[in-house]
């Protein structure tokens, strides 16, 4: 008897036994798998509920604030931002042309210009600009007035010195607390 024939006769005997074993194992494990699946489902649901609760709680906000205020985290962030990796990341971002494309698309957008027109034409913005202009004019006016008053005194003193007359006494500055 050749080896092949021996192997096939062995498979013929063991095959049904193996099938029987597999079926028995499947039947035995089915409840266990079912229970495990249900447990996993319950676990996932619990996890989702836990995450939702954490997200809705004030604790998360507090943790985030504490984390942001943390000296260690700030130092780590600073270190990360100052690192070569961050610089390379920024370089690669610009090299990729993504920002150029973004700007091109943004500038080509009619909505952007409509929005800019709306903002520029809004009464609040025009009022703010005119107010700023007036404020600047006031500042210039104040400066010119102050300098011209000084020039008045200076010219008067110089003229009086020129003709040999006693310069006029300067006025006493009014006390701010009494005015």
């Amino acid at each position, binding site marked *: 008897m050749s080896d092949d024939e021996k192997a096939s006769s062995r498979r013929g005997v063991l095959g049904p036994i193996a099938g029987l074993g597999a079926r028995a194992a499947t039947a035995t494990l089915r409840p266990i798998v079912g229970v495990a699946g249900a447990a996993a489902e319950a676990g996932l649901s619990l996890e989702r509920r836990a995450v939702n609760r954490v997200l809705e709680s004030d604790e998360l906000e507090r943790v985030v604030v504490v984390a942001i205020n943390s000296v260690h985290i700030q130092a780590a962030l600073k270190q990360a931002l100052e690192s070569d990796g961050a610089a390379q990341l920024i370089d690669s971002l610009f090299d990729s042309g993504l920002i150029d494309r973004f700007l091109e698309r943004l500038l080509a957008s009619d909505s952007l210009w409509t929005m800019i027109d709306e903002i520029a034409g809004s009464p609040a913005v025009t009022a703010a600009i005119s107010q700023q202009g007036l*404020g600047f004019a006031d500042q210039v006016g*104040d400066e010119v007035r102050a300098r011209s*008053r000084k*020039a008045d005194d200076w010219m*008067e003193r110089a*003229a009086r010195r020129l003709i040999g007359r006693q310069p006029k006494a300067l*006025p006493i500055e*009014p006390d701010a607390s009494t005015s």
Partner: protein
Amino acid sequence: MSSGPVAPWGEVPIGAPPREALSYVGLATRVVSFTIDAALITVVDVVIGVAAALILSLLHIPHGLRTILTAIGAAAFLIGSIAYFAGFWSATGQTPGARVMQIRVLTADGARVKPRRALLRCAGVILAALPLFAGFALILFDSKRRGLQDRIARTVVVEAPGPSIADVSRAKKRAIREASRQPPPALPE
């Protein structure tokens, strides 16, 4: 800087110091004020002159008439300038330039300058300018900082502090806003 108190006419604007604190204004401030006025007059005259020249260029005008028109233009410029100063001095005591510099022309006793006196002051300005502006140099030596024109017209130039342009604009806007907020008066039944 101050050479003595004066009692200016009219209302003292909100935020202005008391009348006793007002003082006479010197030469430099008055020169700046006059420069602003001169610039304003020049701009207006240039605009009018260019417009008149454009209109006249469309018409065929003989040479003699052109000379007469030029003389009329010069006279109009002089009269306009005098009217500008005399009008503002007698109306509010302040030309636009004086308003920017916060100064005011008053009579020696602090009253409003009347039109006749304002015209006299204009003549005084011309007289003061004729001898190489020597008439204005008197401002440097006079105890009340009066020039020749002030002595002739018996006027003084004093400080007239007032609210700034931005303050006025803000106050106007606030008044408009408050007026729009108030409910309309109820109609009689």
